[in-house]
């Protein structure tokens, strides 16, 4: 039970990053290898805001998230926009370039030593029956759930959400109907980046904040996305959660050093046995 809880918490982080990932795939058909760097940047902004500038905790969170949203637009303008008509591979490579750039830029600016941030709450957590609920894990789960609910509400109940959905489904048609497609894509980048940032902020007190955190988070979010079903929003969430749980259980019962291998093994199995994932549809090329 305890392990399930922990796995759920870690899984929620993967799910948040995976969610940002899926949104970009849907809106712009971009497979963003820099998604993990969003989380890393978010965490570092938090470190700078709270630890270095000594701003209040809540203020630094808000500032970090806003800055991350702005950063998403910059990211889109530099790595996606110039290459948008050239197909998938160039954009993938350029997001890989961006991820190398960001990771090392932070390394240069901040230095290699890992930082640590305090959790959201001072209290260590609560005991519920046999399970000790660590306050940080609990806040991760709660925030993730709130965000998913919020996103659902925005996407399904507002005009903006409808426009975003239209853009992701059929850009040409959307643009014919007078939806500013470019703006919608930029909004998606901003939102996706902010989501990544929030994930980074949430996970920061558990992991140490370091430039190395980005790569693994991104890969696991990608894995979560494929396990759940490529381009599927509920799939990303479920995939992320199940990945976190499998990983935690695997580490506890089988082998700690091979913890990261479980995630990829699970991914390989899914890719080979059920490539459409839990929620995916098979897409055939039309002749």
């Amino acid at each position, binding site marked *: 039970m305890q392990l399930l809880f922990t796995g759920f918490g870690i899984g929620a982080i993967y799910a948040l990053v995976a969610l940002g990932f899926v949104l970009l795939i849907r809106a712009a058909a971009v497979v963003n290898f820099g998604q993990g760097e969003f989380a890393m940047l978010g965490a570092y902004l938090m470190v700078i805001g709270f630890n270095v500038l000594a701003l209040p905790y809540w203020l630094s969170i808000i500032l970090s998230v806003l800055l991350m949203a702005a950063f998403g637009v910059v990211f889109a303008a530099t790595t996606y926009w110039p290459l948008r008509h050239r197909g998938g591979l160039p954009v993938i*490579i350029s997001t890989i*370039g961006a991820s*190398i750039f960001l990771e090392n830029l932070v390394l240069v600016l901040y230095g290699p030593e890992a930082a640590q941030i305090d959790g959201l709450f001072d209290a260590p957590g609560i005991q519920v029956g046999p399970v000790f609920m660590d306050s940080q894990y609990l806040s991760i789960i709660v925030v993730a759930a709130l965000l998913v609910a919020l996103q659902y509400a925005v996407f399904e109940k507002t005009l903006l959400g409808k426009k975003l959905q239209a853009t992701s489904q059929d850009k040409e048609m959307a643009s014919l109907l007078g939806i500013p497609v470019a703006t919608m894509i930029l909004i998606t980048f901003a939102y996706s980046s902010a989501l990544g940032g929030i994930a980074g902020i949430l996970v920061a007190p558990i992991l140490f904040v370091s430039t190395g955190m980005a*790569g693994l988070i991104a890969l696991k979010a990608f894995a979560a996305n494929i396990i759940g079903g490529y381009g599927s929003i509920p799939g990303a969430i479920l995939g992320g959660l199940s990945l976190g749980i499998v990983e935690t259980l695997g580490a506890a019962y089988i082998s700690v050093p091979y913890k990261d*291998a479980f995630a990829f*093994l699970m991914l390989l199995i899914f890719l080979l046995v059920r490539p459409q994932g839990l929620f995916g549809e098979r897409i055939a090329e039309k*002749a």
Partner: protein
Amino acid sequence: MAARYRWRGVPAALVAALLAVGLAMLVPAQGYILNIAMQAATYAIAVVGLVVVLGYCGQISIAQAAFFGLGAYGVALGTVDYGLNFFTALAIAVAIAGVLGLILGLGSLRLGGHYLAMVTISFQQILTVVLTNWIGFTHGPDGVRGIPRPTLFGLSFEGGHAYLALCLVAMVAATLGVWRLKSSRLGRAMQAVRDNELAAGTSGIDVFATKVGSFGLSAVFGSLGGGLFSGGFHYISPDQFSFAESIVMLTMALLGGVQNPFGALIGTGLLVILPEWLRFLRQVYLAVYGAAVILIMVFLPDGLWGFVAERLRRRVRAPAQDVAPLPLLAQRGEPGADAVLQVQGLAKHFGGLKALDGVDLAVRRGTVHALIGPNGSGKSTFINVITGLYRPTAGRIGFAGRDITALPPHRRNRAGLARTYQNIRIFRGMSVLENVMVGAERAGNDVANDPAAAVERALAALDFVGLGDEAARLVGTLSYGHQRYVEIARALAGSPEMLLLDEPAAGLNMTEKQELGGLLRRLKGHGLTILIIDHDMALVEQVADHITVLNFGRRIADGAPQVVLQHPDVIAAYLGEPQRHEAA
């Protein structure tokens, strides 16, 4: 002729190898510069392997460092722990890596694009985890020390010069081999798969096997480089073969130009030397490097080599040689006597939509059979099911006396079924001649195994469609109408039993349509069996011997043109149902 063709490159290769050895002698026999040279040479071999899988075949592999590591660990563990001879260990390592590469390629059976990239990343990550944690076998994070260099026929490669020369010769061999591959049958097949998978399949290429092969080859080069790397540095550890290194290799290939092994050499050399030049910004180096990757993608889409090659591109003229006429139709059987294509009860349902609902159709030898019908009547679905792109829900397809219902597209093409597409599908990265050669080289064609004869056949096919002078041009630079002719020539070069034309007149202007009509009449005159779909009634009436009409996935008329086009159901399908009171 073929033998001479095969050995033509040998003197040049020997000269290049000697040059490489000479170059090795110029480098100091030990120390820093030697190390850099050794790293560049061994990396280059791996990056040249990436050219095969990514540049030629268009498959993203982000695991080249893993194969590099397999080679390195194979040699290291084989020589140090198991006392094997260097070359034996290298051979075993390369074989294992090759097999793993093939297995990785198997993933491409069901997965494309990003999925496959993800599989390679997973493989890379798992290998890193295993190398680090399986301490009993791999020595874990400490790595392996004291890796020896080989001796061959009493010749010791222990010295820095000798070993570097060995690496450079291997590099030259790898580069020239991959360069030759590009203009070989397999290389053309890979590029065809890269440019258009569907068309590659219906041109007789086994798409899946080609992809798997490219992964295997790429892994072989990767592990070969790694094995040499291991002897060069005497010491290896898992972090040298991480995901990050795979990215570095990918960048090397892209920077230099992934379409060409020489580009790979340039890219590798540059990225190995660059950090040394950029020493003063050591700290910022990797950040600059990441930014450079983005800039390269934005401004140099074809890499440095592509950039240079573009500017040096000579106006290549078509090979001036007399073209033998296209041996189109070594007559097979009596025209009209038997049905080449025999379709019974063909159905294709997409969910609840019955795109085809029990269609019967027979195309007799030597006739031009037209399949017409309003938009959405199932014509394109029909042709896609016939050529194997869709699996039928029910029904049977007989072709040239065989049941082909269950065959994959490339096997149907090899049986003699060639097609063109409504939205032209040609191999855009290749020349006009190469496009048509892919058709000529379909397995089972008489010229398939003779490159010189395949060139001749392709030129003959181009000549037939009137594009003989454009053979050397890049196919994308042709006009739309001419691109369609390239597609037809590609189909003809494979000496098909039957040609399927999917709306060949679509998108053509009046003059082009008239030309096309002429071409079709010539094909008909040669007695080629043709199944044509088109909306252009003028064209259909000109050439068709027999017409079948589809509407809502069902056959509503079938017979001679004059009869079918007068058929009330056909008129109704095209012009709408007459109102009841008018009819009365």
